[in-house]
């Protein structure tokens, strides 16, 4: 299987989503977090936010630069990629 741009985007999306959910699960499994014991939150947030970053990159790059994806899907990828990025920048940082 050749690893062209489309496959890379798909791989990024799959790894990112699984990392995102794994981060949430790890925070719950290691938790609860207290004022003196912050490790679960730190590990969970690292995994979760890395996954979210990979998702955003894959969606925006996939929406802009990959030619093999159909036009409707590219538009959706770009729009939702930017929505997720903006959500993380402006909304979610106040709750995390």
């Amino acid at each position, binding site marked *: 299987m050749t690893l062209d741009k489309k496959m890379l985007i798909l791989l990024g999306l799959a790894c990112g989503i699984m990392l995102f959910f794994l981060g949430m699960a790890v925070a719950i499994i290691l938790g609860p*977090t207290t004022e003196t014991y912050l490790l679960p939150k730190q590990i969970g947030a690292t995994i979760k936010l890395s996954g979210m970053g990979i998702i955003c990159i894959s969606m925006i790059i996939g929406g802009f630069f990959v030619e093999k994806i159909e036009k409707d899907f590219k538009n959706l990828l770009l729009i939702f990629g930017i929505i997720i990025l903006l959500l993380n920048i402006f909304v*979610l940082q106040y709750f995390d």
Partner: protein
Amino acid sequence: MKNKDLIILGITIGIIFFFIGLIISNVFPSNSESLVSYKLSAFMKLIGIGFLTTSMLIGGLILSSFDKNLRLILFLFGLILLIIYTIGSPILTWEISKDLSTLPGGSTGSEASEEIFDSRPTSLGTPGFEFIYLIAAIISIYILRKYKQKG
């Protein structure tokens, strides 16, 4: 194994994991002393949703032999699921803000912690938060479709 079989397998495993997680949390209820079933069920539920979302998104993009509208729906609902959990993710983590040893009255902190443990920060813990965003997403899609049809 073909792409189609992989996607079907991913969706099936995701849904199975989710429901096994639900069954575990209901059959073996957890309390502040024993959190194992709670942690296990939360892990299984979240990994199941992860598999489901991944399969829906990737399936929408690569299943070229299927009808385009069908693929678009699969892709769109995968994205909606992702957005819902992105917004809901801060609520899904738990935190005990008070240091249990310093609670007033020499208490061990059981009253304060019970309240937090009972809130169960998983998908079932804060009832209704998914539905609010789901309804908002469906309304937005409906408006977008209307707008596109007019254009």
